[in-house]
């Protein structure tokens, strides 16, 4: 169905959802559910005179990762910002619920979304809630759910909420994780509070390096499909059990984080308190230097979530 590309050379950020899936899994192992030929398209977009996509902006199916069976979903960030519509959400929820029976080694969610698709807002919001519930059920059944974030749309809105329910997250420098996006914050609070055109501010507040340093993401990957593949394999084996002890540890971790950094005005202040020697150097760090920095920060790695 898709052109096969070299995983070492293929940029995660630039690749389409289909290219990511094809290059991420073991070669030729992907089997798609509700593929484009089935034309499961949005019933709403035509009412707004907007074009539809044959897969409604999400590719779901199963395949193998290093020989192990996995379920996989990949959002297409370039179709309507990867936003959750009714069909889009139903495909993800269906994949997760099917994983309860299939019991794969992991469910992988390749996020690339601005959140709910506004033209089908109620259905999209419902899909977010159903997805979070389904992830909790899948994790409860002992199957880790791994989120991978490195697309141009990041993981925003409901996508940020869903990411927070995953067992483990891997992020690249270009990946962003948040709930309210930069423009939303600026619209509500003013440009003096948050200037959405200040790219450096946006990335040090929501970008991959910040999320990794504070333990919001559990792995940092270079912007290639093979780097995300290696990160995912490591995270599957490192996923914590989903039990009361893990949830209590997560609550404690988050409370401690608020107490420790709640008065910071900028991410660089947080990095300094975490013990980063030269916080201003973080955005320009190479992957190797950044990995060494993360290894010295105790809070960056934890058993919670």
């Amino acid at each position, binding site marked *: 169905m898709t052109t096969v590309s070299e995983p070492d050379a293929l940029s995660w950020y630039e690749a389409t959802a289909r290219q990511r899936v094809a290059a991420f899994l073991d070669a030729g192992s992907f089997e798609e559910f509700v593929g484009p030929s089935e034309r499961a398209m949005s019933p709403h977009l035509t009412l707004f005179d907007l*074009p539809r996509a044959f897969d409604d902006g999400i590719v779901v199916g199963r395949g193998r990762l290093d020989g192990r069976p996995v379920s996989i979903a990949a959002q297409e960030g370039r179709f309507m910002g990867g936003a959750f519509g009714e069909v889009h959400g139903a495909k993800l929820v269906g994949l997760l619920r099917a994983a309860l029976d299939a019991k794969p080694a992991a469910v992988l969610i390749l996020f690339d979304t601005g959140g709910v698709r506004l033209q089908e807002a109620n259905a999209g919001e419902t899909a977010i809630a159903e997805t979070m519930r389904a992830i909790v059920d899948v994790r409860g059944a002992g199957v880790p759910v791994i989120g991978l974030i490195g697309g141009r749309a990041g993981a925003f809105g409901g996508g940020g909420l869903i990411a927070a329910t995953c067992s483990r997250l891997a992020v690249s420098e270009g990946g962003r994780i948040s709930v309210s996006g930069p423009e939303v914050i600026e619209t509500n609070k003013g440009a003096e509070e948050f200037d959405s055109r200040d790219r450096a501010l946006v990335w040090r507040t929501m970008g991959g390096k910040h999320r990794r340093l504070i333990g919001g993401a559990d792995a940092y990957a270079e912007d290639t499909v093979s780097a995300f593949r290696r990160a995912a394999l490591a995270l599957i084996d490192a996923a914590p059990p989903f039990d009361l002890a893990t949830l209590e540890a997560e609550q404690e971790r988050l409370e401690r984080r608020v107490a420790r950094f709640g008065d910071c005005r900028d991410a660089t202040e947080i990095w300094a308190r975490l013990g980063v020697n030269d916080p201003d150097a973080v955005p320009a760090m190479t992957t190797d230097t950044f990995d060494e920095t993360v290894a010295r920060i105790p809070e960056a790695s934890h058993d919670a979530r």
Partner: protein
Amino acid sequence: MESLTFRHTTTTPSPGSTPRAITGVVASGNLEVLLERVLAPDACEVTIETPVRGYGDVWEAVVADFVARGPAGGLRISINDGGARPDAVALRLAQGARLMEA
């Protein structure tokens, strides 16, 4: 939205046996092309859904050019357009036809 359908007969069937392929993404200035090997080897049908009205004759010319140049026999081609220019459409059609040759 505007829906267009063009039916052609051709003497050059699409080689290979790939049953279906998809290329491109529905985004501004881009389009997705779904190709399915479901027609008789001398037939090619192209359907287009586009939010940009009034360019039927341009689409007709691009599709006719594609069928005249490429091995497109046997293919039903379905396009979701995001406002792509004719050169992008021609490129995607050629990419799609190549994917079907595997």
